[in-house]
């Protein structure tokens, strides 16, 4: 955070606080712009996924999670499951049923709703691309869960000191120059790890080489302002349960539109109410008693 707590305290008062908040807000959005192109990401090619679920296992091992026994097709994200392979039966145009496998996990948005709503900054978008959770800060308000457009964060409901759980993009491995555990484990080349900008180029090239095979759409390129996880598919995304109606702008912009007006609102109210109070004069006499006459004044004249 650009403004230190000591500076905040020095300012004091609600007006100063609101103005300082606005300043910090501006600086944050500038920082987000600068680092996007260098961020890591993964490209998931649904046409290449064979549904072996090796990625699930690799994820469990990398995150020291107990293996669970969710049968194929019934798996879902949970406090102990950061990724799973969704089995989708769909009917083709010619009436034949086909199966597609879709790996699901945190999308690692470029401007994540979860990180913007968290009051204590427990969720943060790191420079390398991962949306990281700092569990020592979390109070458990669960706003990240309701705000996430992909419904990813999970909660340890059975714990008496619960924490949020979700894919952390193996940021520890990334910092050591290694790819995510799931992409390293994938035997069919369905999960490709790399710089997001390079993966976007790669995805566009795959569509161009095989235009009759792929749907001409890269999911995650623009959704909610872009995500670090990108998808290619050879069947329409809507049939695989992807939300196609998400806004193309980052969701935090909608909050910022209001939050940025608050400092002026506070100042305006302080000036108007303060001036009004002074100008309207006193309604009590010298003894602290209310004037009989002014007692009649209500909202209805």
């Amino acid at each position, binding site marked *: *955070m650009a403004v230190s707590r000591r500076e905040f305290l020095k300012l004091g008062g609600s007006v100063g606080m609101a103005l300082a908040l606005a300043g910090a807000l501006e600086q944050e959005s500038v920082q987000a712009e600068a680092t996007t192109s260098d961020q890591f990401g993964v490209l998931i090619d649904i046409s290449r996924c064979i549904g072996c679920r090796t990625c699930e296992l690799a994820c469990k091992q990398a995150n020291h999670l107990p293996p669970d026994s969710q049968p194929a097709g019934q798996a879902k994200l949970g406090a102990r499951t950061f990724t799973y392979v969704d089995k989708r039966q769909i009917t083709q145009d010619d009436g034949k049923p086909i199966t597609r496998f879709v790996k699901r996990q945190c999308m690692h948005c470029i401007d994540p709703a979860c990180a913007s709503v968290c009051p*204590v900054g427990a969720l943060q978008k790191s420079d390398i691309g991962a949306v990281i959770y700092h569990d020592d800060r979390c109070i458990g308000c669960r706003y990240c869960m309701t705000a996430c457009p992909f419904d990813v964060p999970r909660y340890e409901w059975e714990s008496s000191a619960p924490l949020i759980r979700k894919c952390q993009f193996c940021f520890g491995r990334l910092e050591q120059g290694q790819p995510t555990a799931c992409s390293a484990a994938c035997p069919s080349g369905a999960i490709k790890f790399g710089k997001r900008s390079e993966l976007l180029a790669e995805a566009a090239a795959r569509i161009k080489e095989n235009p009759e095979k792929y749907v001409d759409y890269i999911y995650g390129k623009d959704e909610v302002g872009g995500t670090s996880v990108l998808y290619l598919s050879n069947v329409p995304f809507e049939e695989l349960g992807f939300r196609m109606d998400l806004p193309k702008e980052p969701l935090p912009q909608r909050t910022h539109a209001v939050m940025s007006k608050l400092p002026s609102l506070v100042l305006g109210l302080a000036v108007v109410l303060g001036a009004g109070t002074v100008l309207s004069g006193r309604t009590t006499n010298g003894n602290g008693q209310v004037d009989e006459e002014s*007692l009649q004044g209500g*909202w209805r004249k």
Partner: protein
Amino acid sequence: MIVSRAKLTPTVLIGGGVLALLWAGGALSILLRLILGLGATTNLNDATPWGLWIGFDVMSGVALAAGGFVIAGSVYLFRREKYRPVLRPAILTAFLGYLLVIFGLVLDIGQPWRIWHPIVMWNPRSVLLEVAWCVMLYTTVLALEFSPVVLERFKLHKLLKVVHVITPVLVIAGVILSTLHQSSLGSLFLIMPEKINPLWYTPLLPVFFFISAVGVGLGMVIVESSLSCRAFHRGLEMTILSDLGWAAVWVLAGYIVLRFADITLRGALVNAFRPTFTAFLFWLEIGVGAILPMLLLARRSVRFSASGLFRSALLIIFGVVMYRLNMAIFNFWAYTGHYYVPSLMEVLVTLTLVTGGVVAFGVIARFFPVFEYSE
């Protein structure tokens, strides 16, 4: 000070027994929630992370406590001295309301012992951080606004003078803080356009949360005054309350016109006329909870009848609680397809908080000069 002797009639005995049972259940639920966690005691889960405690105890609770800043602002900033007799009870209601909101929030967050984190850990982009700070500061303001009642009781005249001097500043701060967080509770939902039905989702959410809070603030003052006049056998401030009812007509009228203009301009009005449960909830909120009380209170005969005023004000409260529940709970029914219904323990805790607030008001009003006024 009010001195009255409660007689031990059968109604009082049965009422007391029910209350004692309820509070025992509530206390046990709170204990279990703290020991076992949220999963074991509530019906919350990954599909429905927010439930009754957020939708009612916190979101509705803050709105229902809006009478404090509405009356304080009217009296001190707009010099409507006529309302001074209802000022102290309104501030006491608000103060107790915010204490209950904080208590409810502490129980709802996963790690209650970390409730202080927002004081030192800041994410300046978070609406919730702003709400947390406003609630902390405004609860402090309310404590100071209420302090003359306590200071008078114990005849601490020097301190009383200090509070009198800073009162205008306190009231201005209170109005600003209330404007901020009452509206910001609506802004919490701006980030989830894909989950809220267009009947409710609008960039104007903060505006509507604020106006509806002012409306329900007026409604709460009417209800609280009506109840305390019966409990303490005092005269009802009829001219004041009918005046507030009249103000509520205008607030509700403006609110209803704005809501429908907004819904129509966004092309969402058709959603209100589909045979869906969502449309039913919408009309329950707007029709029964806003249009009906507005029409009722517009009639002179209703405004000057104690029961008419009381019932109309109850409708306003119902409407605003429905608004908050529609936002925090029912829109998620439609979005997730998972029908969250609170557990018995969640309901017991909520009822314990509400009744606890009412009883606390009664006890404080009995031992402190809440119904007396001077500057």
